[in-house]
């Protein structure tokens, strides 16, 4: 079973329409909504975990794109500044997805972007603000 977490940005014309439900009905793809919000300019923002056959997910993503939905993997919007991070581990006690974890016995703090759900809890917890999230940028800001 293939599973990935995506950030979807819905243009304002689509943010009030039922689109995601079709993923189950037509594409046999299960979804888990990790975050959903409407931004000030009426664009929709959603963080979704999609689970299903790889081909079905690809087709489902194409379907979403046909509505003008922009799709990114969470790993492209959350990053760790490795120059700032000093490998303390304060984030590892807070990360609910175990995307930030300690590799033993080295005690190195690892960031596994595939596991990251984009919740952003690590951002204020990091003592040196090494975690950066650009989730709340509007679609237009991203295009600019």
């Amino acid at each position, binding site marked *: 079973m293939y599973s990935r977490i995506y950030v979807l940005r819905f243009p304002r014309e689509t943010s009030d329409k039922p689109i995601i439900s079709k993923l189950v009905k037509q594409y046999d793809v299960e979804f888990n909504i990790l975050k959903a919000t409407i931004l000030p300019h009426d664009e929709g923002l959603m963080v979704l975990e999609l689970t299903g056959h790889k081909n079905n997910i690809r087709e489902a993503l194409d379907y979403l794109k046909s509505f003008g939905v922009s799709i990114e993997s969470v790993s492209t919007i959350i990053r760790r500044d490795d120059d700032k991070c000093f490998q*303390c581990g304060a984030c590892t*006690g807070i990360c609910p997805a175990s995307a930030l974890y300690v590799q033993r016995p080295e005690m190195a703090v690892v960031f596994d972007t595939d596991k990251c759900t984009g919740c952003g809890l690590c951002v*204020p917890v990091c003592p040196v603000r090494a975690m950066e999230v650009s989730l709340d940028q509007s679609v237009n800001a991203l295009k600019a």
Partner: protein
Amino acid sequence: MKEHKVTKTIAEINERIRKGEAVVVTAEEMVGIVRENGPEEAARRIDVVTTGTFSPMCSSGAFLNFGQTLPTIKAARVWLNNVPAYAGLAAVDIFLGGAEPAEDDPLNKVFPGEFRYGGGHVIEDLLAGKKVKLKAVAYGTDCYPNTIMEKEITLADLPNALLVNPRNCYQNYNCAINLSDKTIYTYMGTLRPRGKNVNYATSGELSPLLNDPLYRTIGLGSKIFLGGGTGYITWHGTQHNPHAMRLANQTPCRPAGTLMVQGELKQMSARWIKGISMQGYGTTIAVGVGVPIPVLNEEIAGYTGVSDAEIMTQVVDYSYDCSHGVDRNYAEVSYAELKSGQIEVNGRKVATASLSSVVRAREIAEILREWIKSGDFTLTEPVKLICDM
């Protein structure tokens, strides 16, 4: 004092360092060496054990002299990037505390505050070569007529800059838990409710004072790794408590000894001095410190061979007990358990996380080992040992 079978002096060890013959290992490496060979044989073979710690360390800061401008000024209040510094020293001498937040910081008005910038960040910016805005106001005197001055400074511009930390290198510290039913934001990090996680802040077997638990080899004048450069121990630190409860191996199992350290800021680096923002608590500073322990006899060798499994600390509640002087702990745990990622408190498994970087502590111990091996860094004979202070 009991008789030792092996005795060495710092002068003898230095002679070996100069000849390139000294055997230097890190505190992590020493664990296995003592376990396999015993302390006596380890004392014969090993000359110096290097330690390291890189962690948020409150009670750190810098004395800066920013030079006169014309007309001259006797600065009464001074800000660096809007972070207030203490100016009641002399005309252009200030002390910038690492834990001082920027003056316009919203603090905890919207809880929990972010505390994005403070004295520690100013020191890090200076070390990174960045320009820092300095503002000074004064009441004006005949000899210092100016009443207001603003200029941009860099570390290179400053006539003098000295890192002076009244309390670093806590010898052991509490492991923090939150037994209340809401998330709390502390100097030990963010603690989830009902004991969901614990945070600790010591590098364990790599930590300087856990390798010389009775402070018998270091003291006033001991040369150390400080902030990426060299510095010196100048006294024990504030809150130094040598009488804390100890195990049979002499390591304390409660917060105990501390060090006061200082060094020339200009030869340090932003990689080893970092501004810290503790959500809901405040700003502070992370400092990299490494202390070389001379293996003077088998007793010291035994101490430096201590392992994470043999160093204990207590789990303390930070939602109520710690702030109300309640002397109660919920578990006694070893650093081996803490570093495993999970401990048991009241029969329940709890996730552990560290505020102290073991990766960087190890790097410091390795850098210090290489400095000594190359002959560049010799040990200094303390003018007064900390155990005699």
